[in-house]
């Protein structure tokens, strides 16, 4: 396990470096000069030229490109990601305060997705070809084909505007924070994100269970006198979930993508909303900081998936 994981970690670091080069290169392609953008033409006066030159030197923009890259990389490694062009605040701070709500939403919706997908997929597999299977297919297909943001808008329409039951924006109502209030705000984003994520997962669980149901050890268990339910829960499920667990780990980046959309619809104060706002405002430092964070998150989830696989399957031993 040690050697294999070490190799994977090294490859991940290599990939991260490549990606960081890609991001940096992308940034260099951006139209417009970062300094000149800080000082729009109408604000320039007689001293502007000198000021721009001085700023340039200060930001190191006159140095060779690879020096700039390493400076930037070095800064990033120590947490200095620059300052938001929009608010002037440190990008690190912004990311830091936005991570919480996003992780909160993502984590809970992942749990919800699993809670929906595993029983539903199991039911569909055990009752393959029958009504329950088709019903589960309909649900999971619906989850996959309907854009989550559309469901969000629909949800707001029905539950916020017509029925007045649930709030339509934010994490909490300003001025009246309470657990109940936070929960109400959580319901719609959580349910939609969880439902959307369960679609594909249900199909995976279903096919994994179906494959396991044909195994010889099922017949042995039956020959021992294990009940039908016992066969499924004690024998099949454990085997069927092994590949599913790694899939869950690998779905984390996709979950972030979903969170971006949902946070936008529900004005949820998380990373996704920050990223879209930065995009709209062409706030490059924030975009880049977000890109780095995201790249790290993706590579980490791949590593976690590898780790989980070795932990969960006793046949995959130390290598």
């Amino acid at each position, binding site marked *: 396990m040690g050697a294999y994981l070490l190799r994977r970690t090294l*490859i991940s670091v290599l*990939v991260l470096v490549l990606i960081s080069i890609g*991001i940096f290169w*992308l*940034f260099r*392609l*951006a*139209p417009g000069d970062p300094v000149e953008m800080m000082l729009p033409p109408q604000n320039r006066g007689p001293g502007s030229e000198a000021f721009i030159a001085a700023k340039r030197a200060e930001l190191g923009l006159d140095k060779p490109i690879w020096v700039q890259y390493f400076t930037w990389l070095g800064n990033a490694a120590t947490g200095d990601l620059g300052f938001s062009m929009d608010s002037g605040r440190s990008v690190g701070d912004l990311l830091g305060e936005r991570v919480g709500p996003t992780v909160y939403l993502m984590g809970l919706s992942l749990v919800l997705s699993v809670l929906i997908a595993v029983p539903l997929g199991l039911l569909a597999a055990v009752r*393959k070809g029958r009504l329950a299977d088709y019903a589960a297919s309909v649900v999971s*297909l*619906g989850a*996959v*084909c*309907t*854009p*989550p*943001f*559309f469901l969000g*808008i*629909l949800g*707001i*329409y029905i539950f*916020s*505007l*017509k029925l007045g039951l649930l709030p*339509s924006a934010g994490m909490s109502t300003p001025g009246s924070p309470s657990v109940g209030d936070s929960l109400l705000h959580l319901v719609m984003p959580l349910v939609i994100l969880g439902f959307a994520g369960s679609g594909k997962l249900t199909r995976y669980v*279903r*096919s994994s269970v*179906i494959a396991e149901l044909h195994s010889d050890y099922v017949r042995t268990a039956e020959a021992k006198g294990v009940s039908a339910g016992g066969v499924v829960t004690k024998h099949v499920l454990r085997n069927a979930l092994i590949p599913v667990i790694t899939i869950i780990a*690998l779905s984390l*980046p*996709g979950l*972030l*993508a979903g969170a*971006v*959309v949902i946070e*936008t*619809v529900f004005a949820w104060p998380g990373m996704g909303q920050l*990223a*879209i706002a*930065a*995009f*709209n405002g*062409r706030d*490059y430092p924030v*975009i*880049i900081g*977000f*890109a780095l964070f*995201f790249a790290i998150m*993706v590579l980490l*989830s*791949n590593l976690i998936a590898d780790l989980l696989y070795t932990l969960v399957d006793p046949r995959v031993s130390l290598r």
Partner: protein
Amino acid sequence: MTESMPADLSPEARPALRSPGRMALRRFLRHKLAIAGVVVLLLVVLVTVFAPLLTAYDPTKVDLSHVRKPPNADHVLGTDGSGRDVFARMLYAGRVSLLVGVFSALLAVGVGTLLGAIAGILGGWVDSVIMRAADIFLSFPVLVVMIVIAGILGPSVTTMVVAIGVFTWPEAGRVVRGVTLSLREREFVQASQAFGARTRWLIVHHVLPTVLNQVVVVATLAVATGILLEASLSFLGLGVQPPQPSWGNMLTDAQRLTVISQMPWLWLPPGIAVAITVLSVNFVGDGLRDALDPREAS
């Protein structure tokens, strides 16, 4: 043993009912949902292609005297914030969404087939590198990547199509690689070579048909993915830019509560259109999968 060999082995001599193409068609037609999908899809395509015949309105023409009108005799689906006819926008938007879906799928499948074939044929470290790259591309969701790319370079339809294609190639790549690998070992390839068949003939008559079957399925499902991604990206402003309508960006307006609550005709049609189209493509894809590769049928 050879006296009983049939004299004529050409496809025409084989009983027509059992030919693979016919059997595939029969299996496809057994799939009621797939047929429904084909019908709906055909409808959508026809309606968007013949848009100019179905509506007299220009989807981008602004008419400030008829802003935000609910559906009425003049405008079947009402008008939007700039007075543009929603029905016309729906039809023309359909073109964009479908085209994005198709082109991104073609790109994904093209790149995937090429890389997958190379990986399968060359093997060794080339294979490892390509597969590792596939894993990495697979783990980056297009949406987030687009935020970064479009955020720095500016959003555009081309960027979107390329990004979707580039990040969804792994699926096609994996399939093609699998087929190439298994075909290399398969006995009929070795047997054909023993009979002196040239490599090119082998590829055309053996490799391509098998690959094509699986690739068609992957491509169809890639179209569905493309359409969905276009909707999400355009909704967020990362894709098709107004005034060019797309089903996705027609929903951007619906982030305002007044629009949501009082003007459902603005956001219900595009959302439903996306869902129905994607659903149909998925049904067709499932039907094709069962028809062309019955071993995969669950």
